[in-house]
């Protein structure tokens, strides 16, 4: 039970039920699709890049609580960040959910995903939005897949 509570923290449940920035923006200039064939999670991430800076993010799609909350928190966290900062955060986030790093200091709200490391098969759910982000930043046309 305690494991479940650390996985499904209030913040995660809140963001999965009321995802932020869940919309089709009018003026995005980058987008990418992500797909997790294992559970059928599918998201489209929209970015507005102003030079090096991400000025707006939004997403659409359907997925499990973990992947939806992760996408939602990603859009909140990265607004105003540079692409380099975003990639650095992805690295830290990845280390957190795979259990490679315990420290959550620089992760802010993203720290709520620390429980994922106890559920290895859910790592793909937690990182889907981030892989999609990477693809959008690289200007990829191909949908990214977790497989």
């Amino acid at each position, binding site marked *: *039970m305690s*494991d*479940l*509570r650390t*996985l*499904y923290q209030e913040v995660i*449940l809140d963001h999965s*039920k009321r995802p932020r920035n869940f919309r089709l923006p009018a003026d995005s200039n980058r987008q990418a699709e992500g797909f997790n064939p*294992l*559970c*059928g*999670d*599918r998201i489209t991430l929209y970015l507005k890049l102003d030079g090096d800076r991400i000025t707006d993010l939004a997403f659409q799609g*359907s*997925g*499990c*609580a*973990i992947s*939806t909350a992760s996408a939602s928190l990603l859009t909140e966290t990265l607004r105003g960040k540079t692409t380099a900062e975003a990639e650095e955060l992805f690295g830290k986030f990845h280390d957190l959910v795979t259990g490679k790093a315990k420290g959550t200091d620089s992760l802010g709200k993203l720290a709520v995903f620390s429980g994922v490391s106890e*559920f290895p098969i*859910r790592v793909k*759910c937690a990182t889907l939005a981030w892989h999609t982000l990477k693809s959008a930043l690289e200007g990829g046309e191909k949908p990214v897949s977790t497989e």
Partner: protein
Amino acid sequence: MGTATTASHDVGHRPRRPFDVQRVREDFPILKQEVHGKPLVYLDNAATTQKPRQVIEAEQQFYLHDNSNIHRGVHELSERATQAYEDGREKVRRFLNARESREIIFVRGTTEAINLVAQTFGRERVGAGDEIVISAMEHHSNIVPWQILCQEKGARLRVAPINDRGELIWEEFLKLLGARTRLVAVTHVSNVLGTVNPVKAIVDAAHRLDIPVLLDGAQAAPHQPVDVQALDCDFYAFSGHKVYGPTGVGVLYGKAKLLEAMPPYQGGGDMISSVTFEKTTYNTLPYKFEAGTPNVAGVVGLGAAIDYVSEIGLERIAAYEQELLQDAIRKLEKVPGLTMIGAARQKAAVISFVLEGLHPHDVGTVLDQEGVAVRTGHHCAQPLMDRFQVPATTRASFALYNTHQEVDALVAGLHKVREVLG
């Protein structure tokens, strides 16, 4: 003399023993364990079933005492191994009530059985403009081999639609059968909905137009008696691991006349009767389709699994599983926000459902923490998910060792799901 009469009398009029599930469970050592501190409740039987001690021991005995390659050596062990392998074939013949044991081809599983038919029978019989008819409730392994074939040949895959209950729409199915139809390939029982298709009627309808029929029996063979002669199907496929047998072994049944006319599947040892560099003469059935060293121990295990279910009786197994199914449906109907997908009037003990506002993946994770193993996802049937407009479902599938208490554990687990996920 007197004893003999009594004995045969006993066999003929054996009173129907009540189904003793606790005794059955004793045969499955794996069930006696805790998962996350809770007793394991294994409800993922449509994916694979657990193996009784009898199957595990049969394989072990084979490796401890009889292991050898088959059909090759003149020595004692090869003799024994060959005998064990061919005994397995005879057991499968009886299990399916096939006319002859040479109609039983050993393959890796249902998937390979279907691919074999597509790549041999299909390649020879299907041409440009021809059609293959499947249904909307097929497993990917009864879709993709036909797609590959159709693409190669310029043929067309026609899909018979289903209604909201998850049943084949009969008139629509009939409309698809025509002069260009070269094969009907449908599932006997759906792995997602549990729907039992009217396979006898399907075969009869197709045969009236001289169209052969392949039945995907992966989900049927474990749960009900199958009689390929009564069905009169042309091909029947099933997997050992779903009938309490080992992984890596399965069966293709084919009518001898069809199999004989078909080109071989793979080339190699055992499938030939003579080879020169100019010409190879293919072996007779069933060996023509069994190139290379087969899964001998697997066949031994499968034979033991067939003995096991036959000893209990598939009719009794079916009756018991129907009891579990009805109990589960009754109890799941009362779970708030739960919708079952598939309400076929003929249904095997497979239940797919969705919980309002919750994703099956999360449901599966919470259930797992409660010791309840279910499958979540698209169950290798994405077109079927699209038909019901859900990205995924949670699926509970039952086997002969499941209990009413385990149905209750599933329901309690679902209440826990609400508690955790809201």
